[in-house]
Structures are given as C-alpha cells and as structure tokens.
C-alpha cells in the first residue's frame, strides 16, 4: 500500500488515528482534566476537515472494496464540516456534570460513526456498504441513549437500535436476493452494475435494500423512529443524526442509484417519486403540530429529505449536484437551528415553542440566527436554502416531472408555515417572561457564526455550485 493510497483514504485513516489517540489520552490524563479532551477532539476534527478539502484523485483500493473520486471526497468533506460544527455545539453539553467523564467516549463514538459513513460512501462492495451502515448506526443508537439516567434518552436509543436492526435485516435480506439474482455471484458494485437487470428477484432485492437507506434518511414510511429518537436523544446527537447521518445515507443513495442501479431507473424513479411526495407531505403535516422544537426539527428534517429526494429522482447531473449542494446548505441551516435550540436547552432546559416567545427582545442574535436558519430551511432568499431548493426543483423540471414539481413547491409553502410559527414566537408574540439574556460559550458562538456565514455565502458564491457541478455525474 502506497502513501498515495493512504491519502486516498485520508478521512478514514485520520479519523481512526484520532479515535485511538483520544482513547490513549483519556487513559493518560487525570479525570479532572478530561474535559479538555473536547478541545482536542475539535482540533482533530478541524484538521481532518481541512485535510478533507485537499484535492484528491479517483482511486480504487482493496480490490475494489473501497473506491473514491472527486464527488465522494467532496461528500466526505461536507460530512466533516457538519461533524465539526456538531462537535463545536456539543462542548457546552459535554462539559455538564453528568457527561464530563464521558467526553472521550462521546468523541470516539462520533468519530467511529463518521468512519462508518465514510466507508459507506466509499464502498465498492455491498459488504462494505453494510458494514459502514452498521458502523454508522449502532454507535449512534448508543449515543442516543447517552444520557442513561433519562428515560427518554434510553427510549430513543432502544427504538433506534431495534428498528435499525429490523431495517438492516430487511436490507440484508434484500441484498441476499440481489446476490442470488446477480449472475456471477459477486456483490462488487461494478459487477452488480454490469449484471443488473430488472428481474423480479433483483428488483425485490433492490427495493428491500432501498428501504434500508430510506430508513436511514428517514423517508416516509420508514421515518417513524425519527421524531421519537430526535426528541429523546441529546440535542447534539439529534442534530448529528438529522444532518450527518442523513447526508451520508443520501450520498450513498445517489451513488448507488446513479451507478450500480442505473439500469433500474424505471423502478426507482417511480418509487422514489412516490416516496418523495409522501415524505414531504407527511413530514410537513406532522411538523405543523409540533410544540417541542426538537421534534419539530425532526419532522422538518423529514420533509427536507423529501425535497432532497427530488434530485435523486431526476437522475441527472444537475440532480446529483443539487443533492450535494443542498446537503451542504442543509448542514449549515439545520445545524444553525439545532445550535440555537441546543444553546437554549443547555442554558434553560427549555425546548417548547412557547418558551421562545419574545426571544428576540432578550436574545436578538440567537433569534436572528434561528430565523435565518429557518428561512434557509424554508427556502427563502437571501438564505442559501433558496438556492438549494431551487436547484433541486430545477432538476425535476429538467426531467419534465411537472406534477411532482408542483407538489414539491406547494409543500415548500406548507413548510414555510411552520417555520414561520417559530419566527412568530420569537419576533411577534409578546411575552411577559421571555427567556433572559445569556451568553453561550465561545464554541457555540463560533459554530453559529460558521452556520450563518455558510447560509449567507453558499448561495451567492456560485463557484461552489459550479465546481460541484463539474464533478457530478448523471445517468
């Protein structure tokens, strides 16, 4: 193995090293100073993020078990950025009394899930995909149950874990059928792609497999775990789940659809179109009624996934670009929103929408950040979400699926309604006892600044989109 090969796997390798280093450091420092490890973790993550953006080449390693190229590298870079932001936002929470002796475990689990996601995206074989998926799931379930003295946290953990197990069971069952129906008996992506035909067994296997990803992206009707888990899990885990985990799964979904299963386009275009409509609609309908902001953001992220799917449905280069672009924006927007919720929850333990009444008066910057993030999620300019959504819609328009396009745009309007509810609470509703002014710590502030900057810049800086377009593929 050459150094250049290692460089191709830099994300995974560095993350593994970081995880081990953290474990080692944990052993060496005395318990009182273990808090500091969070700084170390952030530092590692920052380095990895920077390295992740370094130019790279395409390559295939381990006899095609592992593959990478420009867009895969970019996807990983997006995941890195998101994770970095999540880590920044976690510091306050990690330093709380209950958690401070679990800092390194937290970091290691986060890193290992990120490794799993990276492998998942980079996989060249369904086995690698499966392992990546599991690695990206099982530790997160544990993270969801991180606050073990809280019933809700445990509940979130078990719901996630068991349903994930069921889902991966279904996925694997599908893969076994795929295996059977792939002449040649090879589950390397390239081999499957070469052998794929829309036969009954192959299609069934494919759809079972798809359901596993759908579960991970929380597409309706495989989304039911999402809200409960987000609500019960620690906020930063929810944000990690809603952004990074979802993004990773969406990326691999696009990759397999556009490469391995491209000959099944007829099947998945229709299936995904239906799922996209369901996801947007159901996500919106549930989000309307939510009072708990975490739960609210959960449904909102479900709906967002529905929009995301449009890019996949289109099957075009524009579609893939839009997915990456949208995800990049979504990382900042959703983490911006989650960051604010997290800051307030850390400070006051309040997550109800009514608690936000009159927030603008007492905490203007937080409110503005929240508003900007929500506008970005809703697709309102000048927030970047506008661009992201518009390009996604554009990919569908390019594909000529106008009915779907109209349903999607109408759903975008419905989503605006509930985003505005939060804005209303913060800016319009008067409250006698708004949450008092407070300063969140510098990590959190830094993360929010990053998010706001991202939201404001990504849309207008067309170079981002254009360069993504340059490396994307279509059917």
């Amino acid at each position, binding site marked *: 193995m050459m150094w250049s090969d290692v460089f191709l796997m830099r994300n995974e390798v560095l993350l593994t090293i970081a995880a081990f280093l953290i474990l080692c450091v944990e052993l060496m420092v005395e318990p009182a100073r273990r808090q500091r490890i969070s700084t170390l973790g952030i530092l590692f993550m920052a380095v990895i993020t920077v390295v992740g953006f370094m130019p790279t080449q395409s390559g295939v390693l381990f006899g095609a078990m592992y593959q990478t190229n420009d867009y895969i590298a970019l996807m990983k870079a997006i995941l890195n950025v998101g994770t970095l932001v999540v880590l920044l936002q976690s510091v306050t929470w990690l330093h709380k009394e209950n958690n401070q002796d679990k800092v390194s475990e937290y970091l290691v689990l986060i890193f290992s899930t990120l490794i799993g996601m990276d492998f998942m995206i980079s996989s060249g074989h369904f086995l690698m995909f499966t392992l990546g998926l599991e690695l990206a799931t099982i530790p997160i379930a544990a993270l969801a149950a991180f606050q073990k003295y809280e019933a809700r946290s445990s509940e979130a953990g078990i719901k996630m874990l*068991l349903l994930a197990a*069921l889902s991966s069971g*279904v996925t694997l069952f599908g893969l076994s059928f795929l295996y059977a129906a792939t002449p040649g008996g090879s589950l390397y992506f390239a081999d499957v792609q070469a052998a794929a035909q*829309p036969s009954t067994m192959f*299609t069934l296997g494919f759809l079972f497999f798809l359901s596993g990803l759908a579960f991970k992206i929380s597409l309706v*009707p495989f989304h039911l775990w999402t*809200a*409960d888990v987000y609500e019960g899990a620690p906020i930063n885990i929810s944000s990690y789940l809603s952004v990074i985990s979802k993004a990773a799964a969406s990326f691999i979904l696009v990759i397999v659809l556009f490469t391995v299963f491209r000959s099944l386009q007829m099947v998945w275009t229709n299936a995904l179109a239906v799922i996209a409509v369901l996801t947007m609609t159901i996500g919106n309908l549930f989000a309307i*009624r939510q009072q708990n902001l975490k739960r609210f953001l959960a449904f909102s992220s479900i709906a967002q996934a529905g929009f995301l799917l449009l890019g996949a449905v289109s099957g075009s280069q524009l579609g893939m670009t839009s997915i990456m672009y949208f995800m990049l924006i979504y990382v900042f927007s959703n983490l911006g929103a989650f960051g604010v919720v997290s800051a307030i929850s850390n400070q006051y333990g309040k997550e109800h929408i009514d608690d936000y009444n009159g927030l603008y008066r007492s905490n203007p910057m937080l409110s503005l950040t929240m508003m900007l993030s929500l506008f970005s999620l809703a697709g309102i300019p000048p927030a970047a979400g506008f661009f992201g959504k518009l390009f996604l819609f554009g990919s569908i328009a390019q594909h000529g699926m106008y009915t779907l396009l109209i349903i999607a745009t109408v759903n975008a309007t419905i989503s605006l309604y509930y985003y505005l509810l939060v804005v209303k609470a913060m800016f319009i509703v008067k409250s006698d006892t708004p949450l008092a002014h407070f300063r969140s710590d510098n990590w959190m502030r830094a993360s929010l600044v990053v998010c706001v900057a991202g939201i404001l810049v990504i849309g207008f800086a067309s170079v981002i989109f254009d360069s993504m377009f340059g490396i994307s593929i279509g059917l």
Partner: protein
Amino acid sequence: MDYSLSVWIILLPFLAFLITGLAGGRMKAIVSGIIGTASMAIAFVLSIMTAWSYFFASTQGAEGFAAISPINMVWLRFGDTLHIDLGVMLDPISVMMLVVITTVSLMVHIYSIGYMQGESGFARFFACLSLFSFSMLGLVVATNLFQMYMFWELVGLSSYLLIGFYYDRPSAVAASKKAFIVTRFADLGFLLGILLLSFTTGTFDFQTITNPAGPLITQPSSAMFMGASLTTIAVTLIFMGGAGKSAMFPLHIWLPDAMEGPTPVSALIHAATMVVAGVYLVARLFPVYALAAPSALQIVAWVGGFSSLFAAVIACTQTDIKRVLAYSTMSQIGYMMLALGVSGYGGENGLGYMASMFHLFTHAMFKALLFLGAGSVIHAVHSNEMKDMGGLRKFLPITHLTFLIACLAISGIPPFAGFFSKDEILVAAFQHNMPLFVIEYIVAGLTAFYMFRLYYRIFWSDSEHSHDNAHHTPHESPLVMTLPLMFLAVASATVGFLPFHELVTSDHKGFEAVMHWDLASASVLIGVVGIVAATVMYRRSSTLPDRIAEGMKALYTAAYRKFYIDEIYVFVTKRIIFNGISAPVAWFDRHIVDGTMNGIAWLTNAVSYRIRNLQSGQLQWYAFVLVISVIALGVSAFCMIR
C-alpha cells in the same frame, strides 16, 4: 382672424382655480372672489370678441360656418387614429355656448361676491366656481368625444363639490353624492357609447364623426345587435349620458336635490350651463343622430317630451321655490331635447335644431335670472319655502321686477326671449310630430301656470303670518347682487331678437325662418291661460288651490311626491344593489372565497391532527409500518416490471 386667444377663455378660469384653490386659504376672502370674477370677466370679453368675429366679422363660406381649431394637441394616444386630443374647436354651437357660459358665469361670479359674503368657504366657493367654468368651457370647445367626456366628468366633479358646498349639512352631502352617482351612472352609458362609436369609426374626432359625407354616416355599420345598428346603440348610449347630465326622465332625480347647493351655483350649473350639456352633446353629434340613427333621435324626442311634461306637472305642486325652478329647468331642457328630436338635418328641416339651440340660449338667460332672483329672495327671508314668503314685492322691488320679466320670458309671452325660442320649438314639433306637439302645447300652459304660481306666492299673496319667523324685515339685496339681475333681465328681454336661424343651424348654413303666426298666437294663448289660472288661484292667499288639490288628490299627491321616482331609486339601490348584490358579494367573499382559502388551511390542520396516531410511539407499530411498506414496495415492483 386668429382665434388663438380663445384658448385663454378656457385657461383663465383654470388659472383662477389654481390660484384660489391652492392659495385661497391664505388670502383675504374677497381677493379670491375678485380673482375669480376678474378672470371670468376677461374670459367673457374674449368670448364675446370671439363670437363677434366668428359670426359677424368673418366671411361665411359656401359650407356655412366652418369649424376652426386654433389649437389641438394629443393628450393620450391609444393607437394611430385613436387618441385623446385636447384642443379648441370653434363652430356655431360652441361659440354660442362660450357666450352663454361666460355670460352667466360672470353674472354669477359677481352675484356671488354679495351672496356668499361672510361664508367660511368663500375662497373654496370661488375656486370651485372657476373650476366649473373651466370644465364647462373645455367641454363645449371639445374637439373630440373623449375631450368632451373628460370635461364632462370634470363638470360633474365641480357640480359635486358645489352641491356639497355646505358639507356639514347632511342633506347637502347626500345630494351631492346622489348627483355624482346618478350622473356617473349615466356617464357609463356615455363612455360605452364612445367606445362603441370609436369601435365603428376608429376615431373620436367630432369633425370626422359628424361629417355628413364621412364613413359613419354614408356607410352605416351593418353589424346589428338586438335589431339596431351599432351606431344607433352607440348614440343611444351617448344620449344616456346626456340624459343623465341634463336630468331627463328617469335620470332626473338628482337635479331637485342638487338645489342644496348655494343658489348662485344652482343658477350657473343646474339651470343655465351644465344641465344643458346633454342637449349640447346631442347637438354636437346631431348629424349622426339625424342621418345615421333616426331611431335614436326618436328616443331623444320622446324622452325630452315626456320629461318636460312630467317635470311640469311636478313643478305645479312643489313648495320649495328652488325645487320648482329645478323642475322647471328639467321641463325646459325636455323642450330642447324634444326640439332636437323632431329636427331633421339641413336647412329648413333643421328648424328643431336651431330652435333647440335658441331655446338653450334664451333659457340660460332667464333661468339664471330666475335662480339669481330666487337667491335674492332666499337671501332676504332665509328660507326656501313658499310658506315663508309672500308679499315681498314691496321689499324687493328690483328682484320682483326682474323676476317678473323672467317669468314672462319663460311663459313665452312676447316680446320676451322665451317666446321666440319656444315658438320655434312648437313649430318644429308641429311639423314633425303631432303627439309631441300636443304634449308641448300643454306643457307650455303648465309652465306659465307654475311660474306664475311661484311668482305670486313669493311676491304677492300676503298672509299675515308669513314673515313671523324672519329675523328682520326683508330688504333688497346689495347692488353687487342686483346688478347681475338687471343685466340678465335685459338679456332675457332682448336676446329673442337674435337671428339664430342665420347663425346656429344644423348644417352651419343659415336659412330663412318663417314666423308661424298661427302657432305663435296659440302658444301665447295657452301661456296667458296659464298665467290667468295662476293669478286666480295664487294672487291672494285663498283656499282654492287646496280645494283643487283635494279634488285630484291622487294625482296631486303623486306629483307632490314626484311620482315616487326617488322611492323607486332608493329601492333599487338599497334593496337590489346594496342588499341584493353588494352585501351578498361581500358575504360570498368573506365566507366562500376566503372560506375556501381558510378551509384549505383548516383541512391541512385537520389532516395533521387525524394522522397524529401514525406516530403512536409504539415501536412495534413502527416496525409494522416499515414491514408493510417494504412489502408494498416489493409488490409495486412486480406491477412495475410486469
């Protein structure tokens, strides 16, 4: 000669309006009055000069008096030929109207300086008066239909503003509103008529439209609608506009109420000038009516005839002196309309046309005089009601005398002006339409009757308690008010001798008018009968009128109540339009249209609420949904592949 100065006839009042309107509040009240009057005086002089040079100083070509446009500029362009121009067109009727308007307006201005003295809105009054003069002058010199429509609207506005001059008086406010809306309704017809006419001719220009050799008249449009040609419909609709402005039945209801305005205003706008705009409009388009749409002209004739009778009957029963005059105005305008309606085009045939214009001219003089006289009376007794008057001849000698002259004029007693013009109308009617002649003949008698009823009730028929509520002994008005009375009295007495048949004719060419002595004497006779009847009944206060009224109770009550037309209007507007259309529309909008929109939101919420249990929190339910969905996906795959 160069007529470019004539533009100033129109512009001067406008300038006066701007000055008094914008700065009126900051100057001494009398100054604004003087500005208005001075500008009007100059305009008067200019129009007299214009008229002199147009009628008498210029040589008349073979085509008669040619129309002259010293200025005409495009104001708004719709297309190549369709454009609204603003300009001045001088032809016999417009020049005549210039004279009428500036004369009466000047008199009214002068009169108002006295009449309005001490009113808080003095400057405003003069501003509006100037605005009105401007608009009315602009209307008569219009070179095209649309210019006319524009100024038509503006006179409506000034009328609105002046009727509602005492804006803190609810009745005045209501009257002004009514006047505006009713005329607006009529203007709808006018506008539609213009649109229709412009559609068939492709132009608004009067000269093109009314050219007897032009395409509209020589090639009548073949397009028919409900059995009438488009041209007929168009000019009928235009007549609707004229009828509204000229208070023809059934659009007359605003006119009596309009008497809420200050009396000089009634004299100027609602007697002499604005209300004859409808007549002027028909006259303006007369070639079209006469040559291309004779059936429309029939309508004009009958509406005019009926209105004149209708109004005359009502006038006999009214007790508010201004209302009597208002109905009288309506009746007289009916005369003019009728005259137009029974007229033909060209030469002798156009006698009705000439008579109509002649009557317009004379009527302006004596009706303005009547109103100003009435104003003088009201000024003296502070009441409009006949019961508060009587025997005023002693106190108001000048007013009395001038009023008498006017009454004689309107009753068609020679040698006063009305005699000549009315006689021509009767002749025209007699020649062309016997039934209408009969009506008009009766109306002539009625006119004399109610005018002298009015005259006697004001100046004679002393009753001992008639001045009880007066604050002081009535006294004659100041010179500034009586001077116009005298001037107009002289005019009323003399203008009948003007050779109208040589000047203002349907084809702009003079013709030889013949005096029909038989008809003339008959008309004088009926006038005298009317006067005598009035003298018998009203010279002294007696119970005779009451007894007669008792005798024809139904008719009297109906006439007194103005034949319930107002009630019908109220019913139509309140019940049918407001409550029958508007309220349902408002309800529909709030509940159905908006309800649908809200309903969509409600539905979304309801669905959201209904499906909440999908998220039951039960892990195994989630698992079930997951599995079922996977299976459904699988099954659908089968369907897709097959």
